[in-house]
Structures are given as structure tokens and as C-alpha cells.
């Protein structure tokens, strides 16, 4: 059976229809981002003009300059990026192992374990805040990246594990069994055969874990008060005043914070996913 990536046969065909659909898709996803982009080029006064303006009347890059000088935006990005990458890597590693165990190995109480893992994600973070703070303090981890990496890993573990379980189960066992007959260890088969085949799932789990870490605010605010360790969500709130919410500057900071990440992921995804799944496995 061929495992080529497939594009679905849908009811619609024909180039003009596809272009319309593409247009709808792009507008739906990008409209707020585009709005933020335009706002980052406007002045504050323009925002209270009536009727409202869509495109900036007198585009200015002053907001971007302020975004970098009012606050150490690059530092925020750096901290967010490091914490997100490290916690994503840890999440993927741990959940790949756990998902393989749950998908392939006969374990008693498999359902119970799955439910327990899901149960973990049902507690709102705000209720676990103070005990977690005490744990991190007791371990001496306050004001370190690790203080965030560990909880973020736990945040994404359930969803990543479940996604991978469903992907692993969809891969026929004979592929890794043939690898093991060829002399591979079980773990070797896992990483050399199963994971590449489940690439779309691994990649999706990775994106979800990355964005979960990227977004998180409450723990980042409470655990890392050191200004050198501030992450992006916490940092962006520093552009506000007590009452003032300067949309133009904050939009500029958001653009700088979001777009490069998203573009990087898309490029990465193109290469990784299409590369791994278009080959097909002889079977």
C-alpha cells in the first residue's frame, strides 16, 4: 500500500474555485494579523478617528522603533524562544515514548493510564499556581528557565501524547517488526521507523506544544520576576500604562513577536513533512 501524502478529493475542483477558497482561508486566518500589521503603522490619534480607517493614512515606522526601545523586545523574544523550544523538545521526547508504550505494548490498565493523563490537563493553571510556586522555590528554581520548562512540558503532555497515540495506532505493526527482524532494537524501530511515518502527527504535536509555551502568561509572570528572564507575553504587557493601552506600539511588538515564528514554522513544516512522507515506504 502506498503511503504517499494525499490531497483530498473534495467536491470542488477547478482553478478559479480553488483560488476563491484559498482567498477565504487566507482572509479568515490572517485578517486580525493584518489588522495588527496596519495598526502598527498608524498613530494613536488615527485610532479614534471616525469613521475608522483600515489602511494607515500616513504610515509610520515610529511604533517599531518604540517597540524596541521602550522595552527589551529582543530579550523577551529570546527568552520565550528558548523556553518554548526546550519545552517542546522535552514534551515530544517524553510523549513519543509514552505514546509508543500506550499504542503498541500490551499493558493492563491502558485506558486508566490514558484517562489519568487526560485528567491532568483538566485543572486550571490558576488553581495550581501557589503550590507550584512553593515547589519551584523549594527546588531553588525560581528565576530560571527550568521553572517554566517543566510546567510547560506538563501543559502539553496530554494533548501531544494522545495525538501521537492515535497516529502510532494507525501505523501497521509489520513495518517495525520487519525492522526488528533485520536486527533493530525496539527503541531503534520506534525512532527509525515509526516516528518518521507519524511525521504529520509529531509535527502537529510539536506546533501545539510550542505555541502553548509561547502563549503562557500566569506562570511566567509569577516565577520569573527577574527582568532578564521575561518572556514575550509578560513583556508585552509592560508597554501598557496603568490605564493606557497603546495599540500601535503593542501591535508592532506583536508583529515582531508572532510573524517570524509562524513563518519559520511554515518553512520548517514544508521541508520536514513533505520530505518525510512523500517518499513512501515499500511494504
Amino acid at each position, binding site marked *: 500500500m502506498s503511503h504517499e501524502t494525499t490531497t483530498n478529493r473534495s467536491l470542488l475542483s477547478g482553478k478559479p474555485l480553488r483560488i476563491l477558497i484559498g482567498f477565504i482561508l487566507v482572509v479568515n486566518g490572517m485578517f486580525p494579523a493584518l489588522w495588527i500589521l496596519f495598526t502598527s503603522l498608524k498613530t494613536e490619534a488615527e485610532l479614534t478617528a*471616525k469613521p475608522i480607517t483600515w489602511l494607515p493614512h500616513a504610515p509610520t515606522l515610529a511604533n517599531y522603533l518604540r517597540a524596541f526601545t521602550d522595552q527589551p523586545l529582543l530579550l523577551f523574544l529570546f527568552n520565550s524562544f528558548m523556553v518554548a523550544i526546550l519545552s517542546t523538545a522535552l514534551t515530544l521526547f517524553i510523549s513519543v515514548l509514552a505514546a509508543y508504550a500506550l499504542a503498541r505494548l500490551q499493558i493492563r490498565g491502558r485506558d486508566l493510564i490514558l484517562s489519568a493523563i487526560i485528567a491532568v490537563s483538566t485543572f486550571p493553571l490558576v488553581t495550581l499556581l501557589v503550590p507550584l510556586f512553593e515547589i519551584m522555590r523549594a527546588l531553588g528554581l525560581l528565576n530560571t528557565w527550568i521553572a517554566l520548562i517543566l510546567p510547560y512540558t506538563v501543559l502539553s503532555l496530554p494533548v501531544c501524547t494522545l495525538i501521537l497515540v492515535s497516529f502510532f495506532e494507525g501505523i501497521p505493526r509489520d513495518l517495525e517488526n520487519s525492522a526488528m527482524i533485520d536486527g533493530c532494537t525496539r527503541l531503534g524501530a520506534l525512532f527509525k521507523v515509526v516516528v518518521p511515518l507519524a511525521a504529520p502527527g509529531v509535527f502537529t504535536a510539536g506546533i501545539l506544544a510550542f505555541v502553548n509555551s509561547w502563549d503562557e502568561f500566569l506562570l511566567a*509572570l509569577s516565577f520569573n520576576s527577574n527582568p532578564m528572564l521575561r518572556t514575550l507575553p509578560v513583556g508585552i*504587557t509592560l508597554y501598557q500604562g*496603568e*490605564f493606557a493601552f497603546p495599540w500601535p506600539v503593542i501591535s508592532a511588538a506583536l508583529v515582531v513577536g508572532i510573524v517570524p515564528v509562524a513563518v519559520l514554522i511554515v518553512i520548517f513544516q514544508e521541508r520536514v513533512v513533505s520530505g518525510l512522507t512523500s517518499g513512501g515506504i515499500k511494504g
Partner: protein
Amino acid sequence: MTLNNTIKLLLAGAAITLSASAAMAQTNLRVFVSSQHRPDVWRKAFDMYEAKNPNVKVTIETGGNTSEAQAQYLNTVMTAKDSSLDVMILDVIRPAQYAAAGWTVPFNDVLGDAGAAMKRYLPAYAEANTVDGKVVALPAFADAMFLYYRKDLLEKHGIQPPQTWDELAAAAKKVAAAEKDANLQGLSFQGKAIEGAVCTFLLPYWSMGKQLVSDGKLSFDKDAAVKSLKLWKDFVDQGVAKKNIAEVATDDTRKEFQAGNVLFAVNWSYAWGQFQGAESAVKDKVGVVKLPAVQGGQPASCLGGWEWGVSAYSNNKTEAQKLVQYLSSPETSEFMAINASLLPQFPDVYTDADVTKAVPWFANARPVVETAKARPVTPRYNEVSDIIRTTVNAVLAGQSTPEEGATQMEGRLRRVLR
């Protein structure tokens, strides 16, 4: 020398060395400063303190940029009984709650005659910072709500700044009829469910001479509450305030007034600096005056400002209290007024020559700040605030009538404050 004597000599020497080094030991104080109130200028005040007290070193810590985010941060840290902070700056509405939770240390011991000490400040601050006879925090700087108005428009139509709400309504209608500008609002105030909405409710209520909480007990006057809610709703119904006033937050009022679209605005002191800024359309056209009173009542404003408290989990309480007394002194208040434009908590500093030179409008500000009253001083203030602001928001959005709102408010408040 005998062994005994040698040992005694060694111990004596050790004791002397230890006590000498203790006298020279450095105390490190960590102070939580609100990052929206010029921590760079506070840093200079700390430097001056360090110069006079060489054995004390002060480090600043910040977390979050709004009163709410900072409360969230501090609540987490204090609930975990963390000893990393020695001094913290608190919004004026928080000291009662923090004291009840056992998070702050009272100042009565170091103040001597606490009553006399608190009398030096503007009167409302003694009320805001004293709980059960204990002084739980000392004022850092002051703030109050002002009535900003367009000098030019009032002059153009020969109107005096209003002294009652009825006069304000009449003035707004007269100007609206004459100017025929669809974009010009008569009055802008805060109707969104933010902390400022609590002030919105209390301003007329206080003006009628009523108190909401006395000695920690509820003293709700239903009639006054209905009248207060009705006052604001009537502004909306008569077109003096805009229909979507329930969407308006503090900075929306400021932005719209600054753009020249508002005749009268209720707002805090920070707005003044913005109105005189280069980007303002109303520069030099703004007047400031006490908030109007209800018919037959007294003018009342809402007290703002922030207070210094000493953490109960601090390892350096005595040094921390000393630092706070310095920070809450007339000298520091004058320094902060000149360099950070923070309103002073001492009445005399307003008319000090240097202050008037640096910030001339403070002289006009003083009579207004003197009419300010403290919001209910109770440990359960957050719940009281939630009740009041959601009710104000619901009434202004047209979801409840003023009567329904007042009834609901009473019921909910009684459950919180017996």
C-alpha cells in the same frame, strides 16, 4: 598562659570581631516598585537614602504593569509566605486586605503617636491606611479624580464651571445645541466594569453625605444608591453622555477628551500631563475643577494614590520600616512631585515654591484632592468592588434599572459585609 585563659582570650577576641562586623553588616532591602510610576525616579530616592545610610543597600523589583497584574503577582508571592520582598508599594485600595491576610507589619511602634503622625497627611489617607487602630501602610503619593473641562468652549458660551451635576447637564446641553457637533460629547466618565466604575458610583453617593462602610460595617443607603445610579443613567438617556458609555474605560475618556471630542471629563491626575502634550488637540484649552456636587450636597472626589507597606515575612523589618518612613516623608514627596509629577500626600508640599515652579497646576489640584474620600476600607474590598462595578456596568448598559441595580447591590453587599 594556661589553656583556660587562652580559650577565654580567643573567645573574647572572637566576640569582639563578630559584634564589630555585625555593626558594619549590610542590610539588603528588596523593594517592590510599581513600574508604571517612574521606578527610575524612585531609584534616585533610594540612592539618596543609601548615601545617608551606608549599611543599607536597596534593590528594586518589578512585576506587571498595572495595579491588577501587580496584585496578582504579589498575592502569589505573599500567599506562599515568600521572604524575598521587604517593602512593597500597594494601590490605595489594598492595605486593608493585606493587613487582614497578615502580610504587612503595622507602623504604630515606630511612629510614636500614630494619630499625630497620620494627621500630617491629607485626611483621607489616615482613613485609608488605618485598620482597627493600626497604621498598616504609609502613603507614597496621592491621586484623586478631577473634573476636566474645555475652558475655551465654556468661555465662548459664557458659562462658569459647574458646581452641581444639574449645572453640568444644563451647560452640556447649551453647548451641544450651539456647537451642533455630532462628535462632541457632553460628559465622559467610566462605565466599563473596571475599578474606576466603583468611583463612578460613589461620587454622587458621597456627595449626598453618605458612607458605604463605617468601621468595617455596611451602612448602605438605598435611596442614595438609586439616586446615584439614576444620575449617571439620566446623563445617557438625555444624550449628555454617549449611549455606549458601558464600554468606556479610564483611558478612553482621556483619549477622546484629548482629541477634542469631549466637553466635561471625569478622570485621574495622569490625564493632565497628556492633555498638555505635543500630540494633544486641547493643549492650553483645559481647565480643572472640583467634581460637581449633587443638589444640596458637598463636592466629593475619589481618592487614589499608592502606599508603602512592609512585608510580614521580611527578614529586615526594622530597617524596612525606617526606609518606608523616609519614603513617606515631605522631603521625598517634594522630590517625587518635582521629578516624577506625582501628587504629594502632604497638603503643604502643593504650595511649595519649587514644586509650583516645576508643576504649576498642582496648586489648582490641591483643593480637589482635599475633597477626596477613601473607597471602603475593608479586607473584603475586592468583593465589594466587584459588586459595585458590575452593577454600575449593568445599569449603564441598560440591563438593569437603577432600582433593580441598587436592590441587587444591597443584597450582595450584605452577604459580604454583615
